[in-house]
């Protein structure tokens, strides 16, 4: 993996969404290798949604509840890594106005994961060092 991409995954400070990504709908072509990069745990949720179909920025937000910084960080990095397709948002219906919340066993499993992660909001690429 190139150092630019490594840098983008690793950096904690990410500027705004890239101008080319504004007003677009996004779809994940391929998952990044989270075994080899540093990632915020919420990137997993965002990638899962991006892999289902083209989704808008608002949908990503409403699904994940993530900050703008986190969403921009992921979209910018996916785009730079050639893992993301984009197309202009066509219908301007405001989707996903009700925030998505987990219930039942999904909520419990998410708490299980959170307690296993401990205080860490991200996991680092420990496998890279062994390679």
């Amino acid at each position, binding site marked *: 993996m190139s150092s630019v991409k490594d840098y983008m995954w690793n950096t904690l400070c990410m500027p705004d969404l890239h101008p080319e990504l504004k007003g677009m709908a996004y779809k994940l072509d*391929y*998952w990044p*290798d989270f*075994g080899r990069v540093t990632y915020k745990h919420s990137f997993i949720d965002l990638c899962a*949604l991006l892999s*289902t179909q083209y989704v808008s920025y608002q949908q990503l937000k409403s*699904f994940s509840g993530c900050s703008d910084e986190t969403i921009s960080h992921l979209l910018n990095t996916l785009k730079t890594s050639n893992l993301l397709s984009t197309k202009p948002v066509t219908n301007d219906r405001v989707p*996903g106005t009700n925030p998505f919340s987990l219930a*039942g066993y999904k909520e419990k*499993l998410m708490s299980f994961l959170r307690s296993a992660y401990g205080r860490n909001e991200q996991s680092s690429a420990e496998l890279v060092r062994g390679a």
Partner: protein
Amino acid sequence: MYRKLVVIGDVGAGKSTLIRTLSEIETVDTDVTSSKNIGKPLTTVGIDYGRITLGEGDAIGLYGVPGQKRYSFIWDMVKEDIWACILLVKAEHLRAPDKLIDLINVFINDKEYCPLAIGVTHTDIKAINQVVIQKVLQEKGVNAPVFSVDARKKQSSLLLLHTLLSMHNANDFSKRENMA
């Protein structure tokens, strides 16, 4: 409610290790001594079993199932009503990803949404290009994340479990959005 997470993979792929890492209870490991030299002293002949208890009657049961065709009698015992599926493959055994399709199709069918995540183990020994693997699988109609993992590491097992949960959530969300 009880939900089944099936971990499929060839001997030595890391199933028992992964299930041990994920399960908080003592796993029932059915390893016995093998007469064949497979690079380790023990091999799984049956099902590994583990469990994640979530409280108030919810649990995830973890089933480790050998991937070789001669164990298909075991496949038949676990392949119904699966909540999610992890396929573990040793990096050095990944020469032809399309060969995995038949195995995947045993466990993933159109009946009910069942996410699949693929963990490639022993990448500390041989690195992989996971985009190429995803591409080959997509051409055969299988959309699944592929990660370099190490079954011995908690981080890897959490990555796989979190991904499967997120895929379920995303499926629910996109159903909701498409109905709106």
